[in-house]
């Protein structure tokens, strides 16, 4: 089936990016690059994983499944919640890390400091 092949490809992309995000969380030197790697990669991977679930549930729903309709619609809601909360949470974390005095590892110029003093 073509849909199963597409679903396996989507699951592969999602798992690869989730794994890359987790490894990047370990390997990068300071907090801002860790945030960059972890948040972007895991959001992208989770989008693909949930889209794979949505496709399979919609396929079973189209063939006459009953509980899969609820599953498909709620998976879309979970995707929307994930998209909104991840970006906003990452923004809040970056701002609070700067305000608590955390500096980037090899930073030379800090433009934000000048801006906050004005």
């Amino acid at each position, binding site marked *: 089936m073509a849909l199963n092949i597409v679903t396996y490809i989507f699951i592969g992309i999602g798992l690869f990016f989730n794994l890359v995000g987790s490894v990047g969380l370990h390997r990068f030197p300071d907090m801002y690059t860790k945030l960059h790697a972890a948040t972007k990669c895991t959001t992208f991977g989770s989008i693909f994983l949930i889209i794979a679930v949505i496709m399979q549930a919609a396929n079973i729903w189209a063939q006459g499944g009953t509980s899969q309709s609820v599953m498909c619609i709620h998976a879309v809601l979970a995707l929307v919640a994930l998209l909104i*909360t991840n970006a906003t*949470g990452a923004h809040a974390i970056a701002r609070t890390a700067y305000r608590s005095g955390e500096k980037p590892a090899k930073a030379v110029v800090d433009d934000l400091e000048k801006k906050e003093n004005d």
Partner: protein
Amino acid sequence: MNWFPAVIVLVVCIIICVARILMGPGAPTRLVAFDTTNTLVVASLVIAGMMFNHAIFIDVAIVYALLSFTMTLYVAKYIGGGKF
């Protein structure tokens, strides 16, 4: 469809992130690792709902995503201090 290996890989990712929560230097790094763990838990809950064929897992995933977002914001406010 065989969803079980996907859940296994996601659990490995979650274990890596929890290790960074335990090791990480400083509170903001721990908060980043915590946020990443929440994202991975939401994805694995959705896949578990499809795997066990229960829609209740996906409802739990929605509520978990919203509550973990609230908790991330409050911990960020606590760490940052001052006006928010």
